[in-house]
């Protein structure tokens, strides 16, 4: 073949294919447009003719059939639908392959043409009406437990399920068959008008232990029965539950495994390479790593003292290993928060029904990981907050309509990382918090005095205090004497914080700030007045020299200028009532929490170390400035500073200073 002429044909074919593709896509939007169908037909006809002329026999054969299908469509009553377009587009791609490599590509021609003819024949199986395509397989034990697939199928049928078929591929050979095992799967299509939740609700009891694949039929071209091997039984051989032994009829269920469309129901989902470990063992591992870290710190202190180079080298190795081991152990303990979000979906669904309020519940940041201890303790507070949002936050559907809002209230639960913290937010679009109502309630309950000056966020936070409840009527859900103070207590146990924001009429947002882990953190050790303290390193932004004019405590301004920003600072020496003389060259550790920065004046920065967090005894639980203690390399105990608490102390001081300035100005 003349290369030049062949090249010309390729170019022409490429243009024709582009035109064909455009035509098919246009046709998808305007399926009855005769002009477009004619244009498609012309493109095909030209490709066929030119192809045959330049020796592309396979191409010509294929396009001839393709063209015939469209010719039928052009003359017939059955219009062009999604299924036809989908196969036609694939056929268009196939034309390209037939031009590039006719020998390799032709094998696929027959299959495509079959699909194309089937799609164009207008059989419902081939062109499913828009709707749901459901494939499910119950847990193997379900028949023994009294589960009844027939009732499920009846419920599906009530919803309008059509074309219910059994999927028998997973049924083992007769000799391996335990008739009490449920090996049958089913597929069905349901009208698009059925809400997804209605379908899911049918399987409520079964969802924990089943394969369930519900797809929009239009978006799941692999699911329609056209893609199913014909070996699938046309009638549903449902085990009758009243028969104790539901043996599938061998006539309908060939014992040999049947090919099953893999995309539809993966009978053997890929096994994730995981193993279950008892959590007690993880705790023990963490304790051991904690001890290792402490022993390593002692070794390191000794090595420094002796200064022997080979000892120092080994110590560095051990340091590196223990640090790696710590990270590995901690990562084992990290659990995605999505693991507890699942149960909230159910909770919100139930709440929605009990309260008679339509609720759209969404979640985000399911991948955010927290230490498993934190996750476990978090579940109850979140239930409280979500319940509170649904019960008190969201208005009734009528009230929402009256306020010009959508009837369905929305509640969003989301998690995200922020430095060494995880932020968990519960946001609703309800009525919002009424600061005045909260205030008068708090005054009525003697929680604050009538003349108390509270900022808005301080006022909001009152709802987390014991004994506070604004519920005017005691509802079934909230009148249980368990208030949001439980939430506050738990979050404080976790060394976390609660923030509340609200805009009246628009909704409220509860934000929980939680540390990533309760076990080991990187620490920055400092010294003041001969005492050692540790900052969680993640909260430290930088360390600077204390400017000489601040060397001694004065009544002048307590702000540092850090690159143009004013940062209030506190002297740990003063805060902790240390009487030792002040050394020269004090340092300021700039820390941040919740987006706010403060400086803390210390004598000396000792250095970074791994810090095994030991909880403080209950006898010291009332102390605000410390989040725990740790053991240093010399065996002594050092307290860990609670940065969020120190930051709020610093901001309070800042407010006082501002007030003083204000008074002076006035």
């Amino acid at each position, binding site marked *: 073949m003349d290369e030049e002429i062949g090249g010309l044909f390729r170019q022409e074919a490429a243009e024709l294919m582009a035109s064909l593709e455009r035509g098919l896509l246009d046709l998808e939007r305007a399926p009855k447009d005769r002009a477009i169908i004619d244009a498609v037909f012309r493109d095909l006809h030209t490709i066929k003719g030119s192809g045959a002329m330049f020796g592309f026999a396979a191409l010509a054969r294929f396009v001839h059939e393709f063209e015939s299908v469209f010719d039928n469509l052009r003359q017939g009553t059955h219009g062009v639908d999604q299924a036809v377009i989908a196969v036609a587009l694939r056929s268009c791609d196939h034309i390209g392959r037939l031009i590039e490599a006719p020998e390799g590509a032709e094998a696929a021609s027959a299959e495509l043409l079959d699909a194309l003819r089937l799609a164009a024949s207008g059989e419902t199986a081939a062109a499913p009406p828009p709707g749901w395509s459901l494939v499910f397989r119950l847990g193997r034990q*379900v*028949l*023994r*437990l*009294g*589960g*009844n697939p*027939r*009732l499920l199928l*009846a*419920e599906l049928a009530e919803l309008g399920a059509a074309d219910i078929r059994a999927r028998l591929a997973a049924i083992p050979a007769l000799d391996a068959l335990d008739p*009490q095992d449920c090996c049958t799967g089913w597929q069905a299509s349901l009208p698009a008008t059925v809400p997804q939740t209605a379908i899911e609700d049918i399987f*409520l*009891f079964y969802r*924990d232990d089943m394969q369930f694949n519900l797809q929009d039929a239009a978006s799941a071209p692999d699911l329609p029965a056209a893609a199913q091997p014909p070996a699938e039984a046309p009638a549903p051989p449902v085990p009758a*539950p009243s028969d*104790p032994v539901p043996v599938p009829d061998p006539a309908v269920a060939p014992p040999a495994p049947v090919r099953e469309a893999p995309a539809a129901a993966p009978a053997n989902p890929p096994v994730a390479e995981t193993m279950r470990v008892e959590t007690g063992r993880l705790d023990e591992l963490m304790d051991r790593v904690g001890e290792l870290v402490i022993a390593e710190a002692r070794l390191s202190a000794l090595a420094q003292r002796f200064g022997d180079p080979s000892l120092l080298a080994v110590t560095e190795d051990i340091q590196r290993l223990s640090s790696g081991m710590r990270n590995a152990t901690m990562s084992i303990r990290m659990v995605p928060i999505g693991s507890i979000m699942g*149960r909230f979906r159910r909770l919100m669904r*139930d709440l929605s029904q009990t309260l008679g309020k339509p609720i759209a519940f969404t979640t985000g940041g399911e991948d955010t990981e927290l230490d498993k201890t934190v996750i476990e303790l978090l*579940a109850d507070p979140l239930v409280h907050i979500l319940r509170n949002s649904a019960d008190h936050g969201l208005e009734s559907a009528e009230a929402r309509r009256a306020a010009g809002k959508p009837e369905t209230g929305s509640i969003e639960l989301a998690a995200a990382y922020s430095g060494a913290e995880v932020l968990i937010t519960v946001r609703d679009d309800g009525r919002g918090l009424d600061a005045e109502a909260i205030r008068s309630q708090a005054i009525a309950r003697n929680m604050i005095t009538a003349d108390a000056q509270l900022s808005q966020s301080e006022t909001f936070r009152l709802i987390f205090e014991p004994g506070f409840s604004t519920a005017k009527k005691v509802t*079934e859900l909230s009148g249980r004497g368990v208030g949001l103070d439980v939430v506050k207590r738990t979050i404080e146990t976790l060394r976390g914080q609660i923030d509340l924001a609200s805009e009246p009429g628009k909704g409220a947002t509860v934000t929980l700030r939680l540390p990533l882990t309760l076990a080991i953190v990187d620490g920055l050790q400092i010294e003041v007045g001969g005492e050692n303290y540790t900052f969680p390193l993640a909260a430290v932004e930088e360390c600077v020299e204390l400017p000489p004019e601040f060397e001694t405590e004065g009544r002048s301004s307590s702000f540092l200028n850090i690159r143009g920003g004013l940062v209030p600072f506190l002297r740990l020496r003063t805060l902790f009532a240390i009487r030792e003389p002040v050394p020269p060259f004090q340092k300021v550790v700039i820390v941040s929490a919740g987006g706010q920065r403060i400086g803390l004046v210390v004598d000396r920065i000792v250095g970074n170390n791994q810090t095994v967090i030991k909880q403080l005894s209950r006898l010291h639980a009332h102390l605000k400035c410390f989040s725990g203690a740790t053991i240093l390399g010399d065996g002594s105990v050092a307290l860990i500073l609670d940065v969020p608490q120190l930051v709020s102390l610093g901001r309070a001081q800042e407010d006082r200073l501002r007030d003083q300035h204000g008074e002076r100005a006035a």
Partner: protein
Amino acid sequence: MTKTILAVDDSPSVRQMVRLTLTGAGYSVVEAVDGQDALEKASAQKFDAILTDQNMPRLDGISFIRKFRDTASAVGVPIVFLSTESHEGLKQQAREAGAIGWMMKPFDQAQLLAVVKKVAGA
């Protein structure tokens, strides 16, 4: 054929509510006052479904499910666990013991009927 349901609860008022609701809908109801009673009744007769409470004298609900599931007569009998919503963990335990479903207490007649219909059929 009339379907027979075993209602296991130590509270006579709950049993009465279950009996009235279900008999009104054409079911036949047998009552058991605790897990031990239920175990004896369920071994003697095949029920179309069993509804059981958790906190009961002599034998609690989950222990009843566990013991009953060890017997041959339990095959194919659906058990619904009636739990209080504050006990997520219990529900899980009941599932592991062999309950097919659960229902949150308190429930109303419509919910009860819906669940029984779901597991036992109409």
